[in-house]
């Protein structure tokens, strides 16, 4: 008996709350109001190509890129150590890695706000040892720091879960064949861990490139990222047309890079065709 009809209510829901909203975004992004009524326009997309907005996009990509690299460089060794023989059974460590992920991310960002202030803990310590206070907050490094802090576990865990599944006999075989530990890493472990690295990169880069909270709180409204721009256009200046165009551009960018990334990932369970 076919019971596919039970999915139909959700089909309605899906059209209503997933498809129609996207159509609305496309509609607002390609239409302008003139005294004669609505007319089709590409001016919002054209506006995006002004150097200023390209720069915002470049800045977002740049900061997210740095954040991803730092997370990878910091996180990969952590995953390796956690997956190594002596730590393997220490479940508590993985548990400790998971907890920060579940902590409200605004609180995690807020924590740095209090630490980096001119009269915050770090500067108090700095002046305690006799050095001058530094401007730690409200620059792009504060934003990157906030991103790394928030997203590091998203890099560690996927890599860890791939590393832990690597068949030990492959490594042993390589060692038996005379490979030193460096070669084993370069030729065996790292290539095998690539799916984890790719999903780690995806999980860090995507939220980093679209964030507006971290840059607002730790950047002091000066390091406008593409997310901030969209937020401002919708909530502050009410320019829905340009805001929609930017959202479409961002969406295409993300979906496109997701599609590329997912080709490198192993079979994704229940995944889409993208």
């Amino acid at each position, binding site marked *: 008996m076919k019971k596919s009809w*039970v999915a139909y*209510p959700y089909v309605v829901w899906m059209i209503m709350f*997933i498809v129609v909203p996207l159509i609305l975004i496309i509609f607002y992004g390609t239409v302008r109001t003139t005294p004669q009524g609505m007319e089709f326009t590409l001016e919002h997309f054209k506006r995006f190509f002004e150097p200023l907005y390209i720069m915002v996009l470049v800045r977002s990509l740049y900061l997210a890129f740095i954040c991803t690299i730092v997370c990878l460089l910091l996180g990969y060794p952590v995953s390796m150590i956690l997956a190594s023989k002596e730590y393997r059974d220490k479940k508590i460590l993985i548990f400790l890695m998971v907890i920060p992920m579940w902590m409200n991310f605004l609180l995690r960002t807020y924590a740095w706000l209090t630490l980096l202030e001119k009269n915050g803990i770090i500067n108090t310590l700095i002046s305690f040892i006799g050095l001058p206070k530094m401007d730690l907050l409200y620059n792009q490094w504060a934003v990157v720091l906030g991103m790394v802090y928030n997203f590091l576990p998203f890099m560690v865990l996927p890599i860890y879960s791939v590393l832990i599944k690597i068949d030990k006999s492959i490594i042993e075989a390589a060692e038996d064949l005379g490979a030193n530990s460096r070669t084993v890493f370069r030729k065996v472990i790292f290539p095998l861990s690539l799916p984890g690295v790719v999903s780690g990169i995806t999980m860090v880069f995507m939220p980093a490139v679209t964030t507006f909270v971290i840059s607002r709180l730790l950047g002091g409204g000066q390091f406008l990222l593409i997310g901030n721009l969209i937020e401002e256009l919708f909530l502050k200046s009410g320019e829905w047309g340009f805001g929609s165009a930017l959202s479409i551009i961002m969406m295409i960018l993300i979906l496109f890079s997701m599609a590329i990334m997912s080709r490198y990932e192993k079979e994704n369970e229940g995944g889409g065709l993208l």
Partner: protein
Amino acid sequence: MMRHLKRLYIGIVFFFLYAPILILMIFSFNKSRYMSKWDGFSLKWYADLFSDRDIMSALYYTLLIAVLSTIIATVIGLITAIGIHDMNKLGKGIMVNISYLPILNPDIVTGISLMMLFVFMKLELGFLTLLLAHITFNVPYVIFSILPKLRQMNKHLYEAALDLGATPFYAFRKVILPEIMPGVVTGMILAFTLSIDDFVISYFTTGAGVSNLSIIIYSMARVGIKPTINALSTLLFISVLLLLLIVNKRTSNNNGKEKVI
């Protein structure tokens, strides 16, 4: 040597991850409202926290929305997953890809598109719109937790039950449901935590008088440093810790395979 280096490195990373939260927690007991000095132990920020009407109402809405959206999303997701499982290849492909959109799309785009929809529909932004938004982004996670379990299931079991005279609903309850239960539970937990933790989508889809904890923290952080937020983080940290401990215990008791990551 190498061992010590490893230990040191792990230690530093965990210090980086935990020090900020721990400092917030310690200073939630500070009498002074500034974090640059310690004025003595005090619980007054906790008292402030519990008498703050906005925070308490945000806590109430956070939990209410999380519970309601989880229940509704689980029911919809469960039914839909069964339906999708029975679809032909084309239908399945369309369904899976469209419901993947809220997962793949940046939150800000999902939030804004939903906001536009609600404004377009002339719905007043508030509790209802927030709930609808949360259900919308929760259902796909439930579906994708259940689908793999359905795929693993022996499809002849259900037919056998029908042949033996079970009504379809009885067969569903006795045969299918127990098989896919781990997926349902995973989906529920995912939905619940995503809902509790969400900021971006809620920020765009809620209106006057209805905020969740994330929104309150954001608006408080924009006004400045407030020790009540520190008190709130302490409590949230402890609840997250307890919740994870319970969940982990439960999953390791049950099948040991499933991890809530």
